[in-house]
């Protein structure tokens, strides 16, 4: 197996970041937001989930999202539906970093949902029995997995039949601004490039990955979240505090030189700063995926061409000439 990411480096980055509790909580805005958007997808499934796994739980951001009242949908009659946490009897949160996983265990949300925290040496080898979970959720974690196909197969195994895997990960174009400007800064200052931003999976690969792992009824979609930062230094500091800095194998062990940092700041601003904006934008591309483990009596997609209602009749629209 080709190792892309250095697991030890990634573990240390997460652990160190989480030990600075205050700083680490301050940069949770992205993880919290994505966890919320991910959990909203549970609303579409009219079902209760006795036992759910949060794979790569960070600091249990999904548990926090599930218990957040904002997530409730208010019906037209003005009645408020129960929080999503009510649909889940037990949430098992699994993570490699103890400091990160236990960071928020004293916060109030822990009382509103039953949480079990499991620390395992390596997220790529899951210690659970087959057919154990009614759903597996994962938010902003599996982009650091070296062998994603093998992990997805394990997820499929530990799910009960007809149970969903719902995940969000950073994808391809995430931080494309930083990737590009660091490359130019490296070229101009040092005459060559080295990888400062880790590679990510592309959205078009995710469907076939899920398919290969045996998932059915796939849904994959993409969303960009653009965050504004005062400068590139603030962006990089936040990434570090999130535990999300580069963890590629054979990366330069020395930190970026001051010259390259200065050059990068200038180039990033020239390329991406809007005239009327006070700060610089950084794009995070989220890939959301849902796949179902095969099960008896599961809804199946119909054969192609078996529809007997023309969508044109429902949606309207003009004539469409066959080629």
């Amino acid at each position, binding site marked *: 197996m080709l190792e892309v990411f250095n697991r030890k480096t990634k573990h240390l980055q997460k652990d160190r970041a989480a030990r600075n509790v205050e700083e680490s909580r301050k940069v949770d805005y992205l993880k919290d937001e994505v966890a919320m958007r991910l959990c909203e997808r549970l609303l579409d499934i009219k079902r209760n989930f006795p036992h759910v796994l949060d794979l790569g739980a960070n600091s249990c951001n999904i548990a926090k999202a599930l218990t957040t009242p904002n997530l409730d949908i208010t019906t037209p009659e003005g009645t408020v539906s129960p929080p999503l946490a009510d649909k889940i009897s037990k949430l098992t949160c699994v993570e490699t970093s103890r400091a990160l996983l236990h960071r928020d265990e004293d916060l109030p949300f822990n009382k509103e949902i039953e949480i079990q925290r499991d620390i395992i040496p390596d997220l790529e080898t899951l210690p659970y029995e087959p057919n154990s979970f009614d759903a597996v959720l994962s938010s902003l974690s599996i982009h650091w997995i070296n062998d994603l196909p093998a992990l997805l197969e394990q997820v499929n195994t530990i799910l009960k039949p007809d149970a969903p895997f719902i995940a969000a990960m950073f994808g391809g174009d995430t931080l494309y601004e930083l990737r590009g400007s660091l490359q*130019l*800064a490296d*070229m*101009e*200052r*040092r*005459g060559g490039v080295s990888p400062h931003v880790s590679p990510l999976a592309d959205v078009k690969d995710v469907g076939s990955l899920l398919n290969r792992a045996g998932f059915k009824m796939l849904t994959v979609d993409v969303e960009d979240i653009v965050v504004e930062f*005062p*400068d590139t*230094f*603030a962006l*990089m*500091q936040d990434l570090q505090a999130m535990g999300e800095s580069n963890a590629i194998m054979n990366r330069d062990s020395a930190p970026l030189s*001051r*010259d390259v*940092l*200065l*050059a990068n*700041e*200038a*180039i*990033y*601003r*020239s*390329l991406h700063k809007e005239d009327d904006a006070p700060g610089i934008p950084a794009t995070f591309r989220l890939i959301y995926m849902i796949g179902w483990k095969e099960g008896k009596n599961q809804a199946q997609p119909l054969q192609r061409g078996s529809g007997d209602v023309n969508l044109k009749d429902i949606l309207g629209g003009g004539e469409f000439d066959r080629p």
Partner: protein
Amino acid sequence: MPARTRPVEKIAKASAQCSAEVAAYGKCVVTDYNSVHKDMCAKEFMRLKNCYLAASKKG
């Protein structure tokens, strides 16, 4: 714990005082970004660095 200024914060603070030099260097690289090579904008970078060093001395 006393507030500790990290090296990167110092760089951020000093470079913010050199916005003209930052813009000039950035413009130089970006103008021809398909054929960037080593020291293509060495002159602009030296100006940026001199400004930066002066600004960081002032604290």
